[in-house]
């Protein structure tokens, strides 16, 4: 893998998506906060373009900041204050479990997720934001790049991680627990996963995941769950008289055998209930859930995600 960020990006982000990124920005609805200057409106006052208000002059303040027109109106010395513009800390938590390996060609879930993650990271790094990421792969955590950092090497490292074959399980509780202390204030946390089976060992894993994420949200981070699904997982297309053997790509569950027609109805029912629970859970906890299907255009998926982050309505084609 090349260290050249452009080449690294090209490996995970397809050309049409790179074309789309030209001139776009990662914009959040709410202010960010952090020690580094950036482009995002901050919660604190500082150097920026956005007028924040007037504060009384106290000796020692920089006289150049006195708003003389306001002084004339108010007959006392006031200073013009603007919002600071800070850099956004974006942390990508990536599910690299075997379940993400499903699908062939551009419809591969991991490939889809990687393209979106790569595009987001590229946007963020390009506008001076800082990006960190962590993966859960084969039951282990990859935390080396978790602390957000700017610069091209980070993009190359991300591309490298995204190109690796997903396998095994992703230990979500441990990943979130490890990530939480390392998050700077008011970070943007993006989870890339299918969210179908967060922890095969725990029957209550969905609720626990939502709980952990809600805890992050409560600390002021924006949490976005990018759920990447395959069309087969949504529709269960198998039919006919053939005998099928369904195996767990994570290797954690016992395989199931049977004829597709006899399995389909129950599967769809359970899946529907699961997705519905997830949606409600996210809504309740103030988490953003962005669902995309891997056979949909990447551009639509990315535009939808950017719109959701910016608080705009999602384009119609971005909805699964």
């Amino acid at each position, binding site marked *: 893998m090349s260290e050249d960020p452009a080449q690294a990006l090209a490996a995970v982000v397809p050309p049409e998506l790179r074309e789309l990124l030209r001139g776009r920005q990662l914009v959040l609805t709410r202010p960010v906060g952090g020690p580094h200057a950036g482009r995002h409106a901050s919660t604190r006052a500082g150097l920026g373009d956005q007028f924040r208000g007037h504060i009384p002059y106290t000796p020692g303040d920089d006289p150049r900041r006195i708003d003389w027109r306001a002084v004339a109106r108010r007959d006392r010395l006031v200073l013009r204050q603007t919002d600071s513009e800070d850099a956004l800390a974006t942390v990508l938590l990536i599910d690299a479990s*075997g*379940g*993400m*390996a*499903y699908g062939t060609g551009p419809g591969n*879930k991991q490939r889809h997720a990687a393209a979106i993650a790569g595009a987001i990271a590229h946007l963020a790094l390009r506008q001076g934001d800082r990006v960190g990421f962590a993966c859960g792969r084969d039951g282990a955590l990859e935390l080396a790049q978790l602390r957000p950092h700017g610069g091209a090497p980070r993009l190359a490292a991300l591309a490298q991680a995204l190109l690796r074959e997903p396998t095994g399980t992703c230990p979500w509780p441990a990943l979130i627990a490890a990530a939480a202390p390392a998050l700077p204030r008011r970070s943007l946390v993006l989870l890339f996963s*299918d969210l*179908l*089976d967060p922890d*095969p060992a725990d029957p209550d894993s969905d609720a626990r995941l939502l709980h952990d994420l809600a805890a992050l949200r409560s600390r002021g981070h924006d949490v976005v769950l990018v759920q990447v699904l*395959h069309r*087969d*997982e949504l529709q*269960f297309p*198998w039919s006919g008289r*053939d*005998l*099928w*053997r*369904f*195996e*767990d*790509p*994570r290797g954690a*569950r016992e*395989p*199931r*055998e*049977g*004829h597709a027609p*006899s*399995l389909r109805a*129950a*599967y769809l029912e*359970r*899946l529907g209930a*699961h997705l519905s629970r997830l949606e409600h859970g996210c809504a309740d906890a103030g988490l953003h859930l962005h669902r995309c299907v891997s056979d949909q255009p990447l551009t639509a998926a990315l535009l939808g995600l950017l719109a959701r982050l910016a608080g705009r309505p999602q384009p119609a084609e971005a909805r699964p």
Partner: protein
Amino acid sequence: MSLLAPLMLLGLLGLGLPLLAHLRGREEPKRVRFAGLRFLGASDEVVTQRRRVRDGLLLLLRLALLLLLVLALTRPVSTGDARVAVLGEPHDAVLLLDASFSMNLARDGVSLRSASEDTAAAILEALPPGSRVGLVTTDPGGPRRELGADPERVRAAIAEWVAAAPRAGAWTLESGLPRAVALLRQAGEGQPGAAGRRVVYAIGDFTGRGLASLPPTAAADIPVLPVAASGRLDDPPPVPEHMSLESASWVPAREIDPRAVRISGAVRRHGGAGERGLAVLLRVDGEVAARVEVVAPADGLAAFEFTHIGAGVGPTPASVELAELADDPLPGDEARHLWLTGEDNVEVAIVNGDPSEMRAHDEVYFLATALAASASARRLRIHSLAPDQLAARLRDGDRLADVDVLVLANLRAPAEDIAPALRERVAAGMGLWISVGDRVEAGAYNERLGELLPLLLREPLVVGTAPGRSEAHSEGVAPPDLTHPIFLGLQGELGLLGTRTRRVFLLEPDPSRGAEVALSFTSGAPALISRPFGRGRVALLTTSIDRDWSDLPLRPGFVPLAERVLSWLDTGHPGAAAGQIVAGEPRRIAADGPVTVHTPDGRELVLPPEARR
């Protein structure tokens, strides 16, 4: 109903395979690695193995298809007649009829030839509609019909052929197959679309030249279906008892009389039980000359021999016949016809190594003149050959079969490449008389004909130059050795006394060669020396037969000498003569292309190379 390929029924074992697959076959599931496995509840139906026959209809269909395939591969044939098996589907057929002599064998008064007409008719009747049929016989002049849909053509041709008199010279059924195949191929080319199954129905008897000669297939895609002209293939009927004259040949019997011939042969008895006596007649010139009784064992041979003296001058017609066999089931093989000649001509070929335009100087003038004056001149036929003519004849593959005695007169030496043929011919019975002269090259002779020379040649010697004999200028000829076969029965003087020989050829002494000196010079040196070689004889005259080295040819004794030498050299072996061939005896003829045979009735048979016998 019978099957052309019954072994294919083993394919029925294959029926077990689908059955087993349907009974025992575990359906191999298709594998999917599926992330949503969690939502496939354990309460869903999980099937791991089939315990009963599934897809019954499919199984039946598979079994039926396999059964049909196997049955088709066995090539079932329908049997309209109990004896006749015919392919059940429309096809191209050629009837190949055995026209050999043995088909004239009568069983219960009906010859196999007539029975084959009924058999052919049964086949024609049993042929499924849409078939085409053609006809070929093993008689080279027999009827031949192209393939056609109308069997009546073939039926009529067979009836006509059966009604005609049997002819000799038929091929074996196997040799007739190529003609049948050619007929089928020819028809197939004309109608490429109709090229379906093709079968040759070979109708014949059970003899070695009949059905027993047949291969299982005529060509890669054309099976041969043997059909017995009479009886069943799997149960051949016993051969009715009949007698045949197996062989009859004659050789001259000179030891008895110059005009005596010895006629020998054998009678074969086919079938029967116990011993049976019968008479064999020798008929010469239409008159019964002799009769002999022989006893033939069941299925065996009985030999006979006649000695006949007094066959007239020139060829005399004779026949050997089995007497009192009016009711023999196979008529026509009870007699053999021969031409007897008591006096066998002696063909003498003289190779002149030193020819001259002046007759008196010619090498063989004196010999030819002497022989013409001899008592046996009538039976001597003398030809003169140049050395290159001799070589050309031998190189052309002529084995000098018509030459009884070859005289090499002052020949330098036979060419190297013809020497083996000469040796072979002498070993087979030809006589060889070598006389020397100026041109003879001893080394070449020794190298090429040394194997058969009585003694190896050394060098010519001028008489009187030998150490210790310088005073003599010529040699005389000593009286002949009367114990030598050449001079057997000689009365009185030969007439060679006073011969003066100036030059002689010296010879290498070698007792192991078994040479006999018939005539010697007064010095003791051999003048005429002889030796048997194989079935032939060789004589070597150590001086010339013209006047170059000796005045021998001028002596009165030269005529009887030449006559006796030639008589002795002529072994009279039948194989040495042009060869007497009895009808029915195999005769091998070397030729490259097809051979045209002119038969006595004026027909011309062109024999393909493989059928030349």
